[in-house]
């Protein structure tokens, strides 16, 4: 009896273990084609991107198996797949390339680029720079976001300002904002001209770029957040709130949300730096909004600056179909593919391929889109300190908050943040050199 129990128990356990160990990680296809797995981030599960459908249509030898990933969990899912050594063959991400490349999570593409004499000048330069980590290319940019200055023509006109002449300098923005700001009978804001900290793009970082700030010096080993350009920009932002009590502005902003509750779309904020997606959002949620799009204002005597926001495609470490994955990636960034993809979408999908972006079939003569395309020339990468990207932004926002609340002077707040980022960068550099001394980087990456 006991023997039977022992034997059957043993068999069950062994079978369970074998099952765990030998569960096939991917499907077996017997169609003679190479099947590559593509994980992309999306909000709409049922929509398969055009470039996947088209590639599968025209290909005889490669089939792309797409898997949409939800917005909130995509990084962790990709991370786990790489760690389990069973990653997809192609991934699509929006976070800094350097964050993944520096951790040896991506396959360098240099040999493939060289073999195919790939012309990198097809991309906007700001986007191409983002694909580089330590002189190697780890991804190709697929789409981007481009930013420009959006202003409400009706509100400008009603305030007695020329709606065809938006502000071109930050001093003008200040003046316009004062005229455009209105309060209700309870003395609360009911409309504001401009709110520097509202929106995805940080006005003071934008200003620092315009003034020529360099945040990483000494061959990438020293953080310089408390540079005079950044201090000047943050001081501008602090002084801006001398005219508007910060608590009241916070209270006013608490009424904003997404879609038709967005400050600009609901016509509560007259001027903002926004990205291309707002052209579609305005069309959808407030089609009667009368607005213009112009170059982002700058300081007198300085060139404007903007930010890029790149969606990229890459081959993760451990992919078993590198050549096939590369064919698919190359196809995805071609001018024709990007143009057809844009045409297939209801909303504006901003191509990373600059020839596609400048093609008249993309901008359709729309001056607003043309301005957004032109702004890409002035775009900077939001990956400012690649090895301490998230800490940089967290610390910068913390420093700005302390300065705006007058808890610290701008230079003191920035200096404090700089120290923390520097500490993190030092540790990251030390760890990087340790890893390089212990692991065969070429083997791992290839």
């Amino acid at each position, binding site marked *: 009896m006991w023997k039977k129990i022992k034997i059957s128990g043993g068999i069950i356990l062994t079978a369970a273990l074998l099952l765990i160990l030998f569960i096939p990680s991917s499907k077996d296809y017997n169609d003679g084609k190479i099947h590559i797995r593509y994980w992309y981030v999306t909000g709409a599960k049922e929509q398969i991107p055009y470039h996947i459908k088209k590639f599968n249509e025209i290909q005889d030898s490669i089939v792309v198996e797409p898997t949409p990933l939800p917005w909130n969990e995509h990084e962790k899912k990709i991370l786990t797949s790489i*760690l389990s050594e069973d990653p997809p063959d192609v991934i699509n991400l929006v976070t800094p390339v350097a964050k993944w490349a520096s951790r040896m999570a991506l396959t360098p593409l240099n040999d493939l680029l060289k073999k195919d004499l790939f012309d990198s000048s097809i991309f906007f330069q700001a986007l191409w720079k983002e694909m580089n980590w330590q002189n190697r290319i780890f991804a190709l940019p697929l789409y981007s976001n481009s930013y420009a200055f959006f202003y409400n023509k009706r509100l400008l006109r009603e305030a007695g300002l020329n709606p065809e002449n938006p502000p071109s300098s930050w001093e003008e923005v200040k003046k316009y904002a004062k005229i455009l700001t209105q309060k209700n009978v309870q003395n609360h804001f009911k409309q504001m001209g401009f709110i520097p900290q509202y929106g995805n793009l940080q006005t003071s970082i934008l200003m620092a770029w315009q003034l020529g700030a360099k945040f990483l010096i000494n061959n990438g080993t020293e953080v310089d957040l408390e540079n005079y350009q950044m201090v000047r920009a943050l001081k501008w932002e602090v002084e801006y709130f001398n005219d508007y009590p910060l608590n009241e502005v916070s209270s006013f902003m608490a*009424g904003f949300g997404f879609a038709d509750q967005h400050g600009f779309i609901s016509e509560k904020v007259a001027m903002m730096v926004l990205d291309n997606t707002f052209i579609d959002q305005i069309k959808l949620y407030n089609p009667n909004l009368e607005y213009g799009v112009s170059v982002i204002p700058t300081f007198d005597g300085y060139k404007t600056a903007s930010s890029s926001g790149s969606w990229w495609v890459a081959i993760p470490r451990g992919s078993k179909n590198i050549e096939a994955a590369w064919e698919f990636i190359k196809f995805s960034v071609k001018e024709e593919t990007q143009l057809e993809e844009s045409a297939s979408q209801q909303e504006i999908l901003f191509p990373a391929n600059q020839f596609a972006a400048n093609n008249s079939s993309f901008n359709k003569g729309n001056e607003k889109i043309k301005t957004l395309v032109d702004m890409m020339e002035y775009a900077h990468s939001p990956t400012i300190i690649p090895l301490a990207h998230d800490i940089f932004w967290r610390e910068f926002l913390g420093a700005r908050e302390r300065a705006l609340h007058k808890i610290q002077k701008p230079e003191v707040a920035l200096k404090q943040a700089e120290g923390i980022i520097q500490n993190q960068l030092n540790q990251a550099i030390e760890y990087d050199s340790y890893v390089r001394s212990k692991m065969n980087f070429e083997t791992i990456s290839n």
Partner: protein
Amino acid sequence: MKKRKTNQITRKHAFTGYLFASPWIVGFLIFGLYPIGISFYYSLCQYDILRIPQFIGLRNYEQLLFIDDYFWGSIWNTLFYTGLRVPLCIIGSLLLAVLVNNAIKGVKIFRTIFFIPSIVTGVVLSALWLWILNPQYGLINSFLAYLGIQGPLWLLDADWSKPSMVLMSLWSIGGGRMLVFLAALQGIPQHLYEVVELDGGGWWAKFRNVTIPMISPVIFLWTILEVIFSLQVFIEAYVMTKGGPLNSTLFYNLYLYNRAFEDFDMGYASALAWLLLLITLGITALQFKLSKKWVHY
């Protein structure tokens, strides 16, 4: 001879028992004990998940204890939240349990009504309270404005953000905690109350001298559990404030999460997790020590 046979049978029974328990044992060893052990090792390393760990000794702990202001800030925020929330939750649940313990008509409906809010999940609750606490259009400030009072900025004000989150957590005082208190209240023998009545005691004397001592083990249990839950507060801050304003809601677990899943700094995050374990153990041990003075078994 008989003893040897008994031992043999006991061993066989034990073996069968372990065999049946083996799925759990294997699961615990692989998914429980191993991660716990390895996280301690990682806490002594610089480790970003994707590359090999670098052993750095106690540097993570040194940095946390002596350099990192966020660590101490997050401890203060978490202890403030715990210190304010736990007594309010326990007292609130107990009072509700006392209320629904009365044999009035329709009391079961009241119990259900009080219980319903507690089944709302954390993310939904946070989204709902974001609107309730909205300084411009929120329910609370609109009501205060109706009374002629200008409400605070709630989650947008560093002084009000933590009390706002405590207020929000009171939403679920009618949940499982209230039910357990109710069960404990119903288990108190009636003759004890009759004794107080014979001595001329009123409702307060009954509550203080009978109810509280009789349900003190349940109060103690919930105090320990609530302290542990509160020390792990995360979802509310993650959904509603991301730690702001001015890091006033940067709770311990949110900071740990940021270090682990935004910065991929698993070594540092592991050290944070181990320190949280020590803090929780310390507070629980203190509670057990103090319990001798007020818990009656």
